[in-house]
């Protein structure tokens, strides 16, 4: 369970404080999925870092059950170019002092699940963007997180790869029964993956609307009327900053 109540955040820079997030409140249930969407510069990534414990709020409350057992996928994947794919995936376990045998077995299994069997000895620089993304996913999943945080995980991929990986994320979320928080600037991605959608806007960023989207993650959701209507709704909220109709 994630609870954010009246959280504010600012960055101090040369003596002045630049407010980044203002009065943010929402909750995410255990094993639910949440998408945070908003225009560039509205504080989406900062909000994610608050949830992951990488930043602390100046005011308000951020409570994340199981924060210590979270995995994170960063923008541009954050893979280490000096480590092989297998070493990248196993790193979280190695840092925890897990036995070598267990690490190898886990890495092997995850590479299989992500369709990367046989690529363990490659370096990230030798892989395509979509494959690197799957490596990042495998690395985050290796530590068996209760919560998975993702910061625009698919933003630099082509449309088809993107859709395939959205399906993979949905599958992972449903099969592993984890809580998922995804930051994106893509309306379709937010609607496909977030059962709860936090729409941010303005500077400093504030919550424009919380949209419930219980159908998210379903296999053919993309082709349904509801999906289309939700996308239109999000577009209107983002455009008119909050005055759109109910779906």
């Amino acid at each position, binding site marked *: 369970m994630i609870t954010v109540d009246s959280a504010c955040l600012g960055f101090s820079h040369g003596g002045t404080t630049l407010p980044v997030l203002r009065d943010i409140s929402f909750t995410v249930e255990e094993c639910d999925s949440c998408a945070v969407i908003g225009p560039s510069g509205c504080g989406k990534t900062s909000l994610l870092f608050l949830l992951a414990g990488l930043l602390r709020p100046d005011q308000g409350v951020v409570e994340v059950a199981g924060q210590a057992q979270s995995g994170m996928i960063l923008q541009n994947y954050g893979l*280490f170019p000096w480590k092989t794919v297998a070493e990248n995936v196993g790193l979280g376990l190695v*840092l*925890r002092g897990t036995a070598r045998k267990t690490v190898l077995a886990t890495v092997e299994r995850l590479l299989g699940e992500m369709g990367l069997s046989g690529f363990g000895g*490659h370096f990230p620089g030798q892989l395509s963007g979509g494959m690197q993304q799957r490596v990042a996913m495998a690395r985050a999943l290796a530590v068996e997180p209760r919560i998975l945080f993702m910061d625009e995980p698919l933003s630099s991929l082509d449309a088809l790869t993107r859709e395939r990986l959205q399906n993979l994320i949905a599958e992972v979320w449903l099969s592993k029964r984890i809580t998922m928080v995804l930051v994106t600037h893509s309306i379709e991605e937010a609607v496909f993956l977030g059962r709860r959608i936090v729409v941010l806007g303005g500077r400093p960023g504030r919550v424009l609307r919380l949209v419930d989207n219980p159908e998210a993650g379903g296999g053919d959701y993309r082709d349904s009327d509801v999906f289309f209507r939700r996308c239109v709704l999000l577009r209107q909220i983002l455009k008119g900053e909050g005055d759109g109709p109910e779906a």
Partner: protein
Amino acid sequence: MGRKRDIALAAVVLLVLWEAAALALDSMALPQPWQVALDTARRLADGSLLDDLAISTLRALAGIALALATAVPLGLMVGAEEGLRRRLSPYIYLLYPVPHVVLLPLIIILFGIGEFSKIFLIALIVFFQILVTTRDAAKNIHRNYYLAIETLGASRLQVYRHVILPATLPKILTAMRISIGTAVAILFFVESFATTRGLGYIIMDSWGRSDYVALYSGISSMAALGFSLYLLLDRLERRLCLWTQSH
């Protein structure tokens, strides 16, 4: 393979040029390469050159090793820890441009004319070259890598082991490449006085005795020493930085 062939070819061309120059000049001051090769082989066979080669190699290696062992950890920390960087950088800024070779009299007063003074001067000069490069490389590691390893729950020591050291290793090796030339030059300098062993001594001694063949034998041996260290570093780089060659 092509590279090795090109290097061998370049060596042959240089030898031919030397031979041609020796024939054209017809002077005692420039013996022909085969005369030098013969003299070198004779000295190697009777063991006399081997001793000098060994002591020079040891001095150079010990100096470089001492510099590495101190400059790399310090450079990594000064680069990666902001507080330390702010406090120590002014000192490095002031001390780096000093021509350290002029400290030789001081070093001899402090440590005497034995082996340690020689090794210490080599180490001191190489130290600053490696320190500055390592510090700058550690300072410029992308923030994303730190975030990535933090989200995996690494301790500070693990951050050094898995991010800071491997990220800076290619730059450290480049610094070492430059340092080898410097180390061999300083080696000659420290062996040109107060010792009766080492390649530098052979060069100075044969010069004094106008034994030009022996002089060139010493010079060639010193060049061979520098070249061997270079080859060793090449090997090391290929083993340690596989990822930089994989694109």
